[in-house]
């Protein structure tokens, strides 16, 4: 019996192996392989076996990359497949059971590495500063965090846990968005998100970044909040240093906040002038208190709420989903990371672009870059893997180019400011000196405190159970993935994907891989003797549907009356009540 097979955890966690190997520690003849092993999961693996796996995989990968002049991306064994990343002397490998799509496992490894870098800065520096044990504990923490998906579908689609918008009053979402926008008026605040019990309520950041921020929130949620020295006098506030890549920073600075804010304000018929004429402080507090009162007016389920619902949703969504439009990306791709790298520069730059005219800021940036080499690759990192124009093999190296440059480009230290009110957390990415600027801090803290309390109180009463348990299970299974917002809506039970739901998950996994590798594919129906699954996708979404019950009577011959071919219309009909609109 295979040793490797024995070690597959019984609960079929997504990851069965993960290790980081530092080849620079094993150079000489007498050097032991164990010297190079920075971290190995599962930690209980005998050391000689760790050495064997690390040594062989790293060795064979090097050999292959020398033959092909390119690093290995996916390495498959009979029972496991490994996503591989190489950066200088560091070699990462993440192993999963072979059923997990290559697309997903590569994404997971990249996430894991970027998560580490987000909290610790560059890999090589981290290992110079900290002991292996400390960093090993962090790898373990990030790994367990990324594996915490509730269904097998979460192993296929990398997604954010969001608050179930169908059971939350849209006004609350709007309120959350407004709190974030108000905070952002402090020039030292880059962007933020509001989380409730480990779920996203509202975010101004793109999904990958929100995901990273959530890891810390999750940790502090468990522990007793320990305020950092600089902010000891604020209750529930803590902070930690984080590191952004140049492209992440650029992206945050380019988000057209002001435009969105104005949109929101006009929709909520608040007469707040958007100009800069008013003093900053009064504007901050006034906006928030105004919204607070509006909220209390409307929060009782009265008729006033109904007619406005539509418009609020529009505004809410606009804020919830930071624009990942092609335009923004193109713009970002013209910018260069270099000016952000010099540590004095960002502040200057930040002040420029956070002026009243966002456009002006952009122009400044473009002018700066004209003299510097353009490295547009970094921006690709943030693009969805499925957008890649690759057609062919199943094992596509996803986001390959992007992730590389993500590691190569120097990281810029920033602060993550967290303000906790019971289950609710306001997380803000701020300039490092924000914490020394007591005026700004006070402003942000006091102006948001009341609103946060109010929001918390509402959310506590409004979110009843675990979202996801929507729709009658047993009649049909569905999964709807929004690749722009990285959200997954499904009626699979938590811990699902076993038993009767297994065929659905398997089909969704196959179809997802197919969609990812075939750009032109729009719709598919696949049928085995026991299950027929329908999958459809647009640029932004993927939807999978399976009808249960009723015997699938078929002989496999083409027949237009066959129930399998009625799936598209059934899906359209059924999913409408889940807020999924299939055209």
């Amino acid at each position: 019996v295979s040793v490797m097979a024995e070690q597959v955890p019984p609960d079929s966690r997504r990851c069965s192996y993960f290790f980081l190997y530092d080849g620079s520690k094993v150079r000489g003849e007498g050097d032991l392989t164990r010297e190079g092993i920075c971290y190995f999961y599962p930690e209980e693996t005998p050391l000689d076996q760790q050495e064997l796996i690390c040594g062989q995989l790293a060795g064979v990968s090097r050999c292959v990359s020398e033959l092909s002049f390119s690093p290995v991306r996916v390495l498959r064994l009979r029972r496991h497949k490994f996503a591989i990343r190489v950066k200088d002397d560091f070699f990462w490998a993440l192993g999963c059971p072979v059923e997990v799509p290559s697309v997903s496992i590569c994404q997971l490894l990249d996430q894991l590495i970027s998560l580490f870098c987000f909290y610790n800065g560059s890999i090589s520096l981290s290992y110079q500063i900290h002991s292996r044990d400390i960093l090993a504990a962090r790898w373990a923490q990030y790994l367990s965090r990324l594996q915490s998906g509730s269904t097998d579908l979460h192993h296929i689609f990398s997604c954010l846990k969001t608050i179930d918008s169908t059971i939350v009053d849209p006004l609350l979402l709007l309120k959350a968005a407004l709190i974030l926008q108000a905070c952002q008026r402090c020039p030292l605040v880059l962007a933020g998100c509001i989380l409730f019990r480990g779920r996203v309520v509202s975010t101004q950041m793109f999904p990958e970044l929100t995901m990273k921020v959530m890891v810390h929130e999750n940790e502090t949620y468990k522990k007793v909040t320990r305020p950092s020295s600089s902010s000891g006098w604020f209750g529930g506030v803590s902070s930690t240093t984080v590191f952004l890549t140049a492209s992440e920073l650029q992206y945050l600075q380019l988000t057209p906040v002001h435009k969105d804010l104005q949109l929101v304000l006009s929709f909520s018929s608040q007469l707040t002038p958007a100009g800069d004429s008013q003093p900053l402080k009064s504007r901050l507090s006034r906006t928030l208190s105004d919204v607070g009162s509006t909220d209390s007016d409307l929060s009782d389920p009265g008729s006033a709420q109904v007619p406005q619902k539509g418009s609020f949703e529009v505004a809410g969504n606009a804020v919830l989903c930071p624009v990942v439009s092609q335009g923004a990306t193109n713009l970002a791709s013209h910018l260069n990371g270099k000016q952000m790298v010099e540590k004095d520069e960002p502040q200057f730059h930040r002040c420029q672009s956070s002026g009243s005219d966002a456009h002006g800021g952009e122009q400044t940036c473009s002018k700066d870059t004209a003299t510097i080499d353009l490295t547009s690759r970094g921006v690709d990192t943030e693009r969805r893997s499925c957008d890649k124009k690759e057609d062919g093999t199943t094992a596509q190296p996803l986001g390959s180019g992007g992730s590389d440059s993500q590691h190569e480009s120097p990281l810029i230290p920033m602060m993550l400011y967290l303000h906790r009110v019971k289950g609710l957390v306001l997380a803000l990415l701020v300039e490092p000196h924000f914490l020394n600027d007591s005026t700004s801090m006070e402003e942000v803290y006091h102006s948001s405190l009341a609103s946060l309390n109010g929001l918390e109180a509402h959310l506590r009463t409004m979110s009843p159970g675990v979202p996801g348990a929507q729709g009658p299970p047993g009649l049909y299974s569905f999964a709807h993935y929004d690749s722009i917002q990285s959200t997954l809506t499904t009626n699979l039970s938590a811990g699902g994907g076993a038993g009767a739901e297994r065929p659905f998950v398997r089909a969704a996994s196959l179809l997802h891989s197919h969609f990812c590798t075939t750009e032109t594919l729009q719709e598919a129906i696949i049928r085995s003797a026991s299950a027929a699954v329908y999958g459809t996708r647009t640029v932004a979404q993927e939807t999978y549907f399976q009808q249960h019950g009723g015997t699938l009577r078929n002989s496999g011959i083409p027949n237009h009356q066959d129930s399998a071919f009625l799936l598209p219309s059934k899906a359209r009909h059924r999913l409408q009540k889940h807020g999924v609109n299939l055209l």
Partner: protein
Amino acid sequence: MKCLLIASESAEVLFHWTDREFQQTVQQQYGESQEEGQGLPAFEDSISTLFAPIIISCSTMVDRLHESYTSFTTENNHVYVLHQMDEYLYIAVNGDGEEGEDDLRRKIYVLKKMIEVLFGMVTLSSTLLRRELRPQDTVHRARLWRHLQTLLETYCHLQQNDQSFLVEAVERLIHPTLCEQCIEFLERRLVQQLNSSVERAGEEVLHAFILVHTKLLAFYSSRNASTLSTSDLLALIIMVQNMYPSNMELEDPSPEEGESTSGSGHESFYTPEPSPTDPDSSGSDEARKGGTPVFEFVDPDIQMAEDSLQTLEIPPPDPSTPRRVFLEVSLKEGLYPMMPHSMYCLPLWPGITLVLITKIPTGALAMSVYKYLEAFAKLEKRLMEGQEGSAASRGQPNMHEVRNKLDKFIKLLGPREIQTMQLQNVWTEFKNRAFSRGGPGFNKDLIPWCKHMKTQLCGIYKQCFLTDFGPGHNSQHLSTSLQERAQAMVQEKLMDWKDFLLVKSRRNITMVSYLEDFPGLIHFICVDRSTGQMIAPSLSVTERTTSELGKGPVAQFIKNKVWKLVSTTRHYLQKGYSTVTLRDGDFFFCYFLWFENESGFKLEAGDIPVLPDDFAPIGMLAWDYYRKLLRYYSKSHQGEVVKCYELLTVHLGVIPAEIILQHCRQLASRLWEPTRNPLL
């Protein structure tokens, strides 16, 4: 950038094939000096140095973790597929995006199949096969490798251009009257005459068939012959194509094509001219004799200069010498794989070939060897499982019975040859250990002796059917005059049809006849997996000829879509999905696999086994997936003859799905209607 190699566990390269690009890459890594060196051995060394760490890592993984690599993918999309079969490691590489993991795995299996057809049961002994695949004599090695390389190239060319090799089923020429006449002719005139001639030297024609390019015009099997499996038939077609390549473009050559093939373009890997280094090839000799014309598709001088192997050329043997091929024989008492046959390829005109498969007089010996091999393999298995003593010896087959039979068998062989003496010695030693009173008897210590016995038996087999067969021993076959007579008879019969056939083979059936009934239908492929036959409108995509799909890029685009569709649906089938519909760009694709009984009644769809990704490829050539599928499905339909069909369609996306499905249904029933069935 392509490469395929077979390595032993000790990282010795037993065979390699590389395209020019890969060769250049290797040479770059080892400096130009190597290039001017000894040619072949130098390159071989580079290859083995480059791959050695990978091969060694593979065996370490197997030994210590019981795991093995199946594939690597690099960031620039190079794909490596590794496959361990017996004691050999096959590695296939693609660096130009033309082949995916599945294609490479298929290529590995096809190479293995071709080796089995060429070496038969010698493949069952790794010691012997190693010696066969890598002869000490470099000239001999170069010749053998060149032969395998061209076979592989021919296969790749067919797989990429011929629909029947895409879906791995035989395509027949659709002309019922002519086909019927030809079959009758083969039966009543040709085979009868050959088998009653005294010049046949003990051989007996079992199968006779006429190929027009890759399509079957007529196929006749004599009454006492077992069925020729689709897998074997497809392998034989590859061999015929390798000897007498039919390049469609050649029939109306255009200047561009001439240039592209003589240059270093990617097409140059396909060498339609039979390799002069090939010992068994009759091509160049035929040309010299002025008999049948042979395509001179590559300028021989250029070929000579480009191919360093040419320097190792030796004169080819007599063209009338048949090829030894090892094919499956199914008899009432059981299935015998890799039984020796002789294959005669008689070219009638360019593109049209008559193939005769004969049973050789000593064929029965092969069956005995196979039975003994099986007996020792089973004994070995029982001993490995821990059975001892009489439990091991009395199993099926009973070793005491085997002992008596084998004693007689060895006596019959006669002690004249060294090989027989060796077998005798090992057998005596085996008997001493297993049967004598004081001996250790049947226990684990006997396992190595089972292996020795198997090696010795394979040695006997090799001596009888491989060594015996070559220059000097060519008396035992249909006489040259008999072959010439057969050739002339069929030529005479088909003389008036020859041009028609060549055109017909290119446009076997055309979409035109279906357009009226099936508006919006662009293409379809129908396969009868029970008989291993397929039917599809022609998809010839050449620069010069305008197909129904239009010219150049459009036709090429659709062709690519069809090829991609086949690989996609195979992937779903491997995972248990027998129906697939896809809306892809402006097209709508359908795939159906279903079962019927003999009277055409549609049977309920059954569960199809879910196979791992690195499993043998789905098809009929290298590993007969469909035969196993049919056997699996038949278990739940005992007493019924089960048939299996597949239908692939490509429609315009604007056609409503309901209409498309109706089309599929109509096509499915129409194509296999007995009265309209053009396949039989």
